[in-house]
C-alpha cells in the first residue's frame, strides 16, 4: 500500500504507526468505469492471471514510478551518482522484486509498467 505516496509492506505495518497519514490501497486507485492508466495497462498487457497479487503489484508500481521520478537509483543502476536513470526492463524488474506473482505473469507486469512509464516520459 501507499503511505503519503510511498510504498510499504502492509503485512509488517502496525496500523497505529500510520495514524494521521494518507493511506492509499487499490480501492483508491481509479474509479469503477474509469480505471487508472496502469490498471488499463495491466488488462491490455496481460499483467495477471489469478489476480491475487495484482492489487499489490499496481500499488507497488505506482510507488516505484514515483521513486524513479525523484531520481532514486537501484542496485542495477550502472552509475549510482547519475541524475537521469533510464527505466529499462532490468530496472523495472529489480525495483519490482518485492512483489511476487506465483502465476508468473512477470512479462505482462513489466510490459504494463513500461507502457505507462513510456507514456509519462512522452507527456
Amino acid at each position: 500500500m501507499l503511505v503519503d505516496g510511498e510504498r510499504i509492506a502492509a503485512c509488517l505495518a502496525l496500523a497505529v504507526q500510520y495514524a494521521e497519514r494518507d493511506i492509499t490501497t487499490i480501492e483508491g486507485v481509479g474509479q469503477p468505469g474509469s480505471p487508472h492508466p496502469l490498471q488499463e495497462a495491466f488488462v491490455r498487457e496481460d499483467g495477471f492471471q489469478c489476480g491475487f497479487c495484482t492489487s499489490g503489484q499496481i500499488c507497488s508500481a505506482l510507488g516505484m514510478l514515483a521513486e524513479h521520478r525523484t531520481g532514486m537509483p537501484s542496485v542495477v543502476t550502472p552509475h549510482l551518482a547519475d541524475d537521469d536513470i533510464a527505466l529499462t526492463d532490468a530496472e523495472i524488474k529489480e525495483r519490482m522484486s518485492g512483489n511476487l506473482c506465483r502465476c508468473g505473469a512477470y512479462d505482462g507486469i513489466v510490459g504494463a509498467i513500461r507502457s505507462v512509464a513510456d507514456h509519462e516520459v512522452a507527456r
Partner: protein
Amino acid sequence: MKAFGYVSAPDLAGALEAVAAGARPLGGGTNLVDLMRADVERPDTLVDITSLPLTGVEELAGGGLRIGATVRNSHLAADRLVRSRYPVLAQALLAGASGQLRNMATVGGNLLQRTRCPYLRDHAAACNKREPGSGCAAIEGVHRGTAVLGTSEHCIAAHPSDMAVALLALDAVVEVQSLRGTRRIPLGELHRAPGEAPHVETTLATDELITAVELPPAAVARNSWYRKVRDRASFAFALVSVAAALAVRDGEVVDVRLALGGVATTPWRAREAERVLLGAPATEETFRRAAAAELTSAVARPDNAFKIEMVQRTIAATLRRLATEGGAA
C-alpha cells in the same frame, strides 16, 4: 502474538525514559514486528521512535557524514552525498530487501536486525539465540546459509545485514544515548560474536538507544563497490557479500577497505586481507592471496563449506573490478 503496549515517543528524553523502563524501540518494524508475529520477540511495550528528529543526513565539518538513526534505508541510498562519496553504502542498501521494506526500515533497526537462520523462528527446534542453553539445531541440521567465520559451538548463525557490511568498511561510528549520557561505539565493537552467549548480540546496554551513525571522510570510498552473491538476483539474503574500496597508484595498492557479509556471525572486517593488500601490487595474485589469508580461520560445515571458496572468489572479483573499471558512482 503476545499483547503489547505501544507509545509514540514525544521527544528523545521521553524515548530514553521509555527504553530505560524496558520498552523496545520500534523503527520501521520490518524485523521486530515480523519476529513478534513469530512469537520470537515478546516485548511488553514498544516505544515508537519514528517521530523523533533523527531523520537527517548531514555533512560534517571535514567531510564526514552524520546519519540519523531513523533515516529510512531508501532515503539514505538516494542521498546525493552517499551516492557520490560512499557509493558502496548506497549499493549495499539497495541490495537489501525490497523497495517496500527499504521505505520502512531504519538505519538503527538495520544494525540491530536479527539472523535469518531458520531455527531462530522454529519453536520446535533448539536455538541458543531464542532459548539460551537449548542448543544449536543448525550445526547438525540445515545450515547452508550459516557462517564460517566467528562461529562457536553454540551458534553458527550468519549476520544478515548488507548495510552494516558497507558501514563497517567505512569505519562507521555508532552514537548511542541513554539517560546516563552519550557514547560513541566503533561499529566493529557493536556486534558480539556468539561465543558462550549467542543471545547477547550487541554491546548495547538495555537502556541504550542508537541515535546516529557517523562516517568519517574517506577519499578511498569514492572508488568502492558492494558485490552480493545470492540464490536469486533480487530480494534475497546474501550467500556471501563483499564491501570494498580501493586506491591504486603506480600499480600498487595505497589504500583499501574490505568487509564481508553472509559468511560471519557479525559484519566482518577483513583486516588480514587488508594487511596483505596494502603496499602490494594490484594483481590477481595479490587479490587471491589476500582473500585466502582472511579465510584461514574459517570453520566449514558440510553444507556451508562452499562459502569459503565463493567469498574468496568474490573478494578477488570485487577488487579486480575496482582496479580496472572503477566503482559504483
